[in-house]
């Protein structure tokens, strides 16, 4: 459902509810009069219908309820599950598509996958300059109105109307994802006995799926997971400890 839509010769903005959050898309114009943002809205809606566990009629909900078999699921679902399992292996289990009760939960990859797919659609439609924000995860391309790269502010988890920092969505690393407990409380599963080192983690990466998964993994796995991610992937990381103090890789330092 669109909340706001505006289009013109200069730029187009589309804001709509999806996956329990809100997606904001800004495209530097000129955009077409109608349908210019249909691709992302359709991609998110289709993914929501297939994968969301809060929709009792989604394919994944039917599997969770035992009414359908994973082995007989759609190719799309099996591909998403395989990707999530790959990330579980890559992160040593800090990211997992399995809830403690055994239910397969793909929400950790579905939103960022839909963002990446939307970005591919925008490129295929010939839009070079755009910025997509799905509830706090950001993927940008090209430049903003001032001809500069898009600048992404990072929310202060202890004062949500303030910014902690900002970083450029660069050509090499155009994806910025943040995980934390500030908006939804403690919703990321941790292994029993693992203390919560961080209340918020931001990762900038070459693609939005890597950024999103690693931010989630670091929240779940704490300092050990942070050190693994910063050494094993070409990413920039800003982490906020429980006491509000910060850890940052050089990419987040003032130049």
């Amino acid at each position, binding site marked *: 459902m669109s909340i*706001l839509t*505006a289009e013109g010769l*200069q*730029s187009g*903005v589309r*804001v709509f*509810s999806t996956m*329990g*959050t*809100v997606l*904001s898309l*800004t495209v530097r114009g000129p955009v077409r009069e109608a349908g210019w943002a249909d691709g992302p809205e359709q991609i998110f809606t289709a993914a929501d219908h297939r994968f969301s566990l809060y929709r009792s009629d989604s394919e994944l909900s039917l599997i969770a309820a035992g009414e359908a078999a994973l082995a007989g699921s759609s190719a799309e679902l099996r591909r998403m599950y395989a990707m999530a399992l790959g990330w579980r292996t890559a992160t040593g289990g800090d990211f997992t598509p399995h809830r403690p009760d055994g239910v397969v939960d793909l929400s950790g990859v579905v939103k960022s996958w839909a963002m990446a797919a939307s970005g591919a659609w925008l490129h295929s439609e010939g839009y070079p300059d755009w*910025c997509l*924000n799905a*509830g*706090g*995860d*950001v993927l*940008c391309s090209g430049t*903003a*109105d*001032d001809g500069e790269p898009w*600048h*992404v*502010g*990072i*929310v202060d*988890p202890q004062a*949500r*109307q*303030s*910014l*902690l*920092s*900002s*970083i450029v969505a660069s050509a090499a690393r155009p994806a*910025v994802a943040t*995980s*934390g407990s*500030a*908006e*939804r409380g403690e919703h990321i599963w941790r292994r029993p006995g693992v203390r919560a080192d961080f209340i*918020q983690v*931001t990762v900038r990466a070459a693609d939005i799926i890597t950024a999103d998964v690693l931010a989630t993994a670091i929240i779940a796995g704490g300092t050990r997971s*942070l*050190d693994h991610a*910063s*050494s094993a992937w*070409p990413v920039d*990381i800003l*982490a906020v400890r429980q006491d509000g103090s*910060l*850890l*940052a*890789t*050089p990419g*987040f*330092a*003032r*130049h």
Partner: protein
Amino acid sequence: MQVQVTIADGAITDVSALQLTDRDQRSAQISNYAAPVLRSEVLAAQSAAVQSISGATLTSEGYLTSLQAALDTAHFTAGQSYSPSGAG
């Protein structure tokens, strides 16, 4: 990796690899290490205009009072970037 080259009478007579020291290995591993920083040491946010906001995943309700909503509204009304007010 460093190599040691032995030269005798103007000719190379031996080339051998020198093992990385523990310190060399450590410095390679920590080149992207996340270190403690002060808030004043991360990239300044308060004075720079930003076009999008990254934070913990918003609920649909949370969006309404978020910085991103303010930013989206600013885009609609002025087509301009939003600079957070109230700080430097």
